[in-house]
């Protein structure tokens, strides 16, 4: 099983959970498992044609899946996937 770390802005769609345990051999399987467990998060990660939205960044360890094989990147037990959000706060 793999741990998927959910950033604060998206935790409203995972029942407040900061980490979700997901299964699968590839990143795409892990994301399918996540959206099956929490369907409300799906539109925030994928566009209408089912592709990952450009502002969604996923890292396995310290590497961006965009620099690996994208959603086809293999994952193994114990991997930690981080979902990195685009946040803008600072002043107000």
């Amino acid at each position: 099983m793999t741990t998927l770390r959910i950033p604060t802005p998206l935790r409203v769609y995972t029942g407040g959970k900061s980490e979700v345990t997901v299964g699968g051999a590839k990143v795409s399987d892990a994301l399918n498992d996540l959206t099956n467990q929490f369907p409300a998060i799906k539109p925030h990660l994928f566009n209408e044609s089912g592709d990952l939205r450009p502002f969604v960044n996923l890292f396995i360890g310290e590497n961006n899946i965009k620099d690996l094989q994208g959603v086809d990147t293999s994952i193994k037990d114990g991997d930690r996937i981080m979902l990195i959000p685009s946040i803008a706060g600072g002043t107000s």
Partner: protein
Amino acid sequence: MIEELSHKQILRYSRHLLMPEVGLQGQLKLKNSSVLVVGTGGLGSPVALYLAAAGIGRIGLVDYDIVDSSNLQRQVIHGTSTVGKLKVESARERLLDLNPDIQIDLFNEPYTSENALRIAKDYDVIIDGTDNFPTRYLTNDVSVFLGKPNIYGSIFRFDGQVSVFYAKEGPCYRCLFPEPPPPGLVPSCAEGGVLGVLPGTIGTLQATEAIKVLLGIGEPLIGKLLLYNALDMSFDFVKLKKNPNCRVCGPNADIKELIDYEEFCGVPGHHADDTSAGAGWDITAQDLQERLARTPNLFLLDVREPHELEIAAIKGAKNIPLGEVAQRMSELDSAEEMVVFCKRGSRSARAIEILASAGFKKMKNLKGGINAWAEEVDTSLPLY
């Protein structure tokens, strides 16, 4: 070019001079350096304070806002005595008290495509202490076009991010985030809240990186992103690479000049809190009061989080937090007219979008949210 320090300055900076990594030469470098701080709010406060204390010779401050008492929970450069003053002037007062030896340049104006290159061109380093996506993309592109390091920091609730985006030596902000999220997906700190000390942590990290870059010491966060969570007290680092398809710093970049960032992000960059669902959907607090006098049973939908109801509430309103609206719309009657509200009007605007796409038509958005209601109608309610 200042080539030596006075005796008073030597005493002031003695803790720097004692370290070989800074020393007299390093302190002179800082004295001859300039930094532009975009935003004098949560992040800009600690950044400007520590840069002034460190003896950066010239600090530029860009902000057009005035100090409000709700800022003081985190914007420590300002004070109770400067509430109502221009933020840049309030900040200058504090900085010159801390270090009268430095020059402070004030830009009491919004940072826009029209003025940003002119403002930023005379500084060595740019600090991104902004609070919205349009100004962040603008700050990035200006830094790329001028070839200057952009010390990035961003916060939300308990989360913070820090990096040094320097296109000459590594990726830029757009390499990581080619596009902003659609409007409404990520609430602002004014809507989502922020732990007051969080911008202190992130801002001091930004100041640290700025000083390292100016001195040329250590390993700045170029090509690395720091992710901080205050609740877990976790610091995670990830590697960032230059995106070969980056539209501003990639080999085939097609954005060669500043663009309309509000259009690009689909949201206003300034006064970003004054959100509305659009003219057709809006109802003012006073109009709502009149409507309620005629129709006391008018259905009110409050899309704030349950803990916000403890701060202020409108009696009789049904509470469905924004995050649950899509799943719980069966609890709503599309035939019945309703007025949707939140704290200031942006979450309710998003709720209206969600409901409109499901076929709801008879809706109004309370412009300015429950804060406008508290200001204009029920003054027994607190503003927050």
